[in-house]
């Protein structure tokens, strides 16, 4: 019987080596796998390259990982936010490297890695600073940049529910980068609210098929749900 379910969260993050490239899902805090990141901090891996849309918010999640000094480099589209003080300080102190990638090119580079595309031509960024040093080509009268796949050793993803084969569904805009990163990493580790019986997920509605998932860990219901009903909160997490 296949079971990708890890007994505990430390089992889920076991083996992540120093110097790994780790994709971390989420757009801001939506879909950020905070419990897995906390486990990774405890696990101790350092010298990491982190791929995420942002460079951490507040003092938790990715910000905490950066604050703990475990991140050598961030690949993201939007590091500077009102609450990105942890990254900002490290960056200004020259203690962290930044590779800036426009958001859609970031998503497409991750997709290319997962789907075996060697490189692709994108119109986004043509004529801007991010095009510097990049190959360009005019196709059908429009100019494009050549972009390469972005792969990872590990992906940490937050989904809503999983089955023991690793099939995943997400919740609302927390889906964001999860399905892409799951396919682009050698080892994909997923936290979910709940692991359901095999067959309980509608095969038409599975967003990430289990083929892209290596480990699943249940972390309990998100605080804005109660027994599966949406009850809301006063603020964004």
């Amino acid at each position, binding site marked *: 019987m296949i079971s990708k379910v890890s007994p505990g969260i430390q089992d889920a993050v076991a083996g992540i080596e120093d110097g790994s490239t780790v994709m971390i899902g989420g*757009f*801001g*805090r*939506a*879909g950020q796998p905070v419990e897995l990141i906390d486990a990774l901090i405890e696990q101790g891996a350092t010298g990491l390259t982190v791929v995420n*849309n942002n460079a951490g918010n507040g003092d938790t999640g990715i910000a905490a990982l950066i604050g703990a000094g475990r991140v050598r480099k961030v690949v993201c*589209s*939007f*590091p*500077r*936010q009102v609450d990105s003080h942890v990254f*900002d300080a490290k*960056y*200004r102190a020259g203690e962290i490297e*930044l590779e*800036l990638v*426009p*958001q*859609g*090119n*970031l*998503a*497409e580079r*991750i*997709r290319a890695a997962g789907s075996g595309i060697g490189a692709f031509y*994108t*119109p*986004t*960024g*043509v*004529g*801007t*600073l*991010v095009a510097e040093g990049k190959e360009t080509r005019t196709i059908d009268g429009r100019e494009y940049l050549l972009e390469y796949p972005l792969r990872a050793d590990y992906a940490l993803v937050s989904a809503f529910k999983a089955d023991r084969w690793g099939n995943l569904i*997400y*919740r*609302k*805009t*927390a*889906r*964001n*980068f*999860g*399905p*892409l990163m799951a396919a682009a990493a050698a080892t994909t580790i997923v936290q979910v609210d709940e692991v359901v019986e095999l067959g309980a997920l509608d095969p038409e509605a599975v*967003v990430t098929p289990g083929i892209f998932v290596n480990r699943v860990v249940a972390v309990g219901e*998100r605080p*804005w749900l109660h027994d599966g009903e*949406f009850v*809301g*909160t*006063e*603020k*964004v*997490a």
Partner: protein
Amino acid sequence: MTGIDREALAARIARDIPEGAYVNLGIGAPTLIANYLPDDLEIILHTENGMLGMGPKPEAGRIDPDLINAGKQPVTELPGAAYFHHADSFGMMRGGHLDVCVLGAFQVSERGDLANWHTGAPDAIPAVGGAMDLAIGAKDVYVMTDLVTRDGTAKIVAECTYPVTGVRCVSRIYTDLAVFDVTPDGLAVTDVFGDTTLDELRTITGLTLLDRTP
């Protein structure tokens, strides 16, 4: 010289968006436009973090942290909504499926180059997000901005001095003083607000401006 305030400008832009349009409203002032879209028209809002059919902000206490817009503000879901991942969402933009995208600007050139992501300040931490994708990501890219900065400099210019977000991507510029269409012959003024005159606009911008006012 008088113009209109930001709310009136948002209302003005809202009037130009037809029923059935798929629209992305950029972070900042453009989000105000949503408040002026007529209730009896169906206009479908896209948020690039992965949703079509975005609704207004939730009631107090009903915030869903899994349901946010590109500005990371809480929103709601309308009947007919759909969720998708980032590659599909940005493919939707890059593939030219959105009808209208409205963005803020630091500068817009008379050819439609847009600068809205970076002031070029040497100590700034660069952050682009979806700006460059949005700039090329709709059939019509509209800019919503004051014509003049607080220190009196025109934001519509012959050439952008700030780093650009996209090249020849803007089709129309809505400002507090006038509306400009970007045409192959140069900028054309289609509306003036308050007692603003075309000559004043020419003086402010230093540009040749075509008169296409009604």
